[in-house]
């Protein structure tokens, strides 16, 4: 059952992400990305990382993708994204090269056998309990730092996006947009 689920998720994720990077339509790209994220959470559940899977769903699919969706409102999603690709072969050479190399590295039996668990899960606890125990004891300081970082990022996002709120490009015609560009 698990191999079937893994291969199913793997194939679907790969396909969806390929759509994300190859599609000309922003809406398609974002939708397939969100779907891929959901499926990745499925992989986490298979791996027994329940809490991580839930966080993946809430943060990525819930929050991050929602922010992307808002950002996308600036663009005309019905129009294809125009991109100039001068050397397509180079892109696939680089991507393929790295993929092949990584696959070879991971497929080869070079993983250390002497790895010892630093924080093994507490016996008898469920995954969220075990995560909580480690996160709020051993990783308390990084956790707090991360929270401060998120706060800073939130404020930064609001300030940056809030600048020039009085200018609305969608309310302008082409000449006014051109004027704005010249002034810039």
């Amino acid at each position, binding site marked *: 059952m698990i191999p079937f689920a893994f291969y199913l998720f793997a194939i679907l994720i790969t396909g969806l992400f390929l759509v994300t990077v190859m599609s000309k339509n922003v809406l398609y*790209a974002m939708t397939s990305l969100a779907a891929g994220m959901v499926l990745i959470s499925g992989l986490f559940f298979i791996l027994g990382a329940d809490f991580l899977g839930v966080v993946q769903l809430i943060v990525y699919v819930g929050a991050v993708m929602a922010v992307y969706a808002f950002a996308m409102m600036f663009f005309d999603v019905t129009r294809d994204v125009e991109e100039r690709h001068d050397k397509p072969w180079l892109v696939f050479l680089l991507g393929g090269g790295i993929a092949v190399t990584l696959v070879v590295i991971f497929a080869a039996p070079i993983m250390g056998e002497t790895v010892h668990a630093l924080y093994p899960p507490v016996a008898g606890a469920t995954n969220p309990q075990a995560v909580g125990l480690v996160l709020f004891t051993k990783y308390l300081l990084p956790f707090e730092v*991360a929270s401060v970082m998120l706060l800073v990022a939130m404020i930064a996002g609001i300030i940056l996006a809030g600048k020039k709120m009085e200018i609305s490009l969608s309310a302008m015609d082409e000449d006014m947009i051109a004027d704005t560009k010249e002034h810039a």
Partner: protein
Amino acid sequence: MITMNHYLILSGILFAIGLVGVVRRKNLLMLFFATEIMLNAANIAFAAVSSYYHDLTGQMFAFFIIAVAASEVAVGLGLLILLYKKYGTINIDDFTIMKG
């Protein structure tokens, strides 16, 4: 039997897909999507290692990566909007003011 290597290879492939996106995309929003793919590929690898070695450290790292990704999106999109307001475009072929 699904071994850790299966997950790692999947992670590598997804990372490569993300890399293709990073290199190929000229639209900054699409570029962000590609970076999200790469971050998630790393998360899969961490979760797999964590699971197969029975060590929660990998999951911790995955949490922090998610937190970093969220911050990056917030700041990055804020900058993106500012850029769009200023130049009316987010195609990186249009920004070559640093040409040497």
